[in-house]
């Protein structure tokens, strides 16, 4: 007892985890496969939830967990290099120890509203990261859901992440369509060219499904408009929001949008909920 290591869990103290392998997805996105030092997943979570990744002495940042909860042995984080923590992470080598705490936030309602429904996933760039967790969960419980459409776009074909999934695994699944698009024409790309929102409109989806959207804020904004145009109602669309976070448990007070804390009440919001929030994200 004297060391102060009481048996209660302090939510702000991370547990040690180790980077088991690093997969380079694109020139600025890598996927880190993380386990407990003694092996196994750090904690259980639900699709769409986040975790704080610590790299002392640089700091901490919150990332969505990219792997599916059905993956028993490890967690994956797809991380784009864009700030000081991510920059540092990208320079780490395999077997380096980092800190992880979580899981934080809510999740996509895979066991409630989504059950038995046709699903439409729309992602842009690194925005595939949180959705991949859901998609793989759906793939592993394929019978519980209806038809799956995945629309995914990036700036160039080189910026598409999780290529194994988007090109091989998912198209090979039953009743699943993957629609890929890139922003501009390029050599060797024979798929669709154009922005994700326009592609969504072109694909003329039936409105008997639930849409899950994630990507850069500007893409989300126009995808939501496109879905509205196609006749989707707001309660059929889920998206994720992201703001600066420090504690991850709704106390430090910086990730709020109105009276909601993204770390605690989000990151997954149904669009009719977002409508209730002030426009500050």
């Amino acid at each position, binding site marked *: 007892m004297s*060391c*102060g*290591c009481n048996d209660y869990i*302090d939510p*702000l103290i991370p547990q040690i985890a180790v980077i088991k392998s690093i997969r380079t997805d694109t020139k600025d996105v890598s996927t880190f496969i993380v386990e407990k030092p003694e092996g196994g997943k750090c904690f259980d979570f639900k699709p769409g939830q986040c975790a704080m990744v*610590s790299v002392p002495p640089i*700091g901490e940042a919150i990332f969505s967990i990219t792997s599916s909860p059905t993956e028993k042995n490890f967690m994956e984080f797809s991380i784009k290099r864009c*700030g000081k923590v991510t920059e540092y992470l990208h320079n780490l080598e395999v077997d380096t120890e980092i800190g992880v705490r979580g899981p934080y936030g809510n999740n996509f309602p895979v066991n409630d509203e989504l059950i038995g429904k046709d699903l439409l996933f729309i992602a842009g760039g690194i925005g595939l990261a949180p959705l991949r967790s859901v998609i793989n969960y759906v793939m592993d419980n394929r019978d519980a859901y209806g038809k799956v459409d995945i629309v995914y776009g990036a700036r160039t074909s080189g910026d598409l992440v999780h290529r194994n999934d988007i090109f091989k695994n998912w198209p090979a699944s039953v009743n699943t369509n993957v629609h890929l698009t890139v922003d501009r024409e390029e050599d060797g790309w024979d798929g669709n060219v154009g922005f994700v929102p326009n592609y969504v409109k072109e694909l003329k989806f039936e409105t008997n499904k639930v849409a899950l959207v994630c990507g850069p804020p500007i893409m989300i904004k126009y995808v939501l408009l496109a879905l509205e145009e196609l006749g989707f109602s707001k309660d059929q669309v889920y998206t994720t929001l992201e703001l600066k976070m420090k504690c991850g448990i709704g106390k*430090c*007070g910086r990730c709020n949008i109105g009276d909601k804390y993204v770390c605690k009440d989000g990151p997954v919001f149904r669009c009719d909920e977002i409508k209730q929030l002030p426009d500050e994200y």
Partner: protein
Amino acid sequence: MKKITLDKLSELYIRISQEYDLFVPSDEEGVVSFTPWKDDSNVDFDVLKTNLSPKSFIFPQCETLFNFKSEGKKLSIERLKNDENKFLIFGVRPCDVKAFHLLDNVFLREPMDRLYEEKRNRGTIISMGCIEPEDTCFCNSFNIDPLCAQKGVDVFTLKIKNNIFWKVETQKGRDLTVMLSGLLEEASEDDLKEIELVKESLNSKLEELPYFNIDPQKIDRSLIELFESNVWDEISKSCLGCGSCTYVCPTCHCYDIQDYDGGKGGERFRCWDSCMYSDFTLMAHGNPRTTQKERFRQRFMHKLVYYPNNFNEYACVGCGRCVEKCPVNMNIVKVIRELGGENK
């Protein structure tokens, strides 16, 4: 109800400090703040607003979460030993006690903040009622009775003339009182009458206060309407963007978590942060609050709308510190008025 005369107080302090780390409001170079009691402390129970609020006892400006060491690929994390000393704060005003309760709502909600909880448990609070409210006080706007013990007070006291009246509120307070037996005497019938008189006279004093009419309940627009209101443009103009209001505020509780790199190891600490600062919400890809107007709005919307939506209480206790400290006299009272929170 018990009482003690002022001349016996130093004996009381000595007894308390044998068991507790004792903090009292004392005057140092004209600034009154809660400091550790010493023989020569210049204890001042007449100033209502200590310079900083006592929130720093349970939510210090800076505290270490853990030490870390990273060598090569290895990372080790070492928790700190808990401080086990009991502490006692003497003379916390009802508004500040209420603020503790408001912080509890946030920090003791699941998942519980352990550092906070541990400090809260170690602390004993002797509150003191206010019989001479100041011009900048408006606790009554938040239904705080300056002569009544708030929830969470262990002993409630009142200083009237030469006596301090002593009323036990909790088990902690009872234990303390037992420890002080011999020093405290029973209050007489006459004393009780005097207290009643003081209570009666307070009401008229409250009514004369300049901020008596402030009533946040009168703000009746919806969250979105208030957020989009154009009053923010006008009233945020003079705001300098400093953090003095946030840091003197007993209810502001935003914090930052940072790492210190100390050569061969370092520590992660959390420290106060202010939503008034430009980097508060700055992320690698941008900032949702780019101007002072948005940051200013956040602070007051949080106190008057967001927090009440989550906890059914306002996140302001009307202590008036921000009224006194703001370099440009822009404060929550003016904001409440602009939003319509005033009894005409």
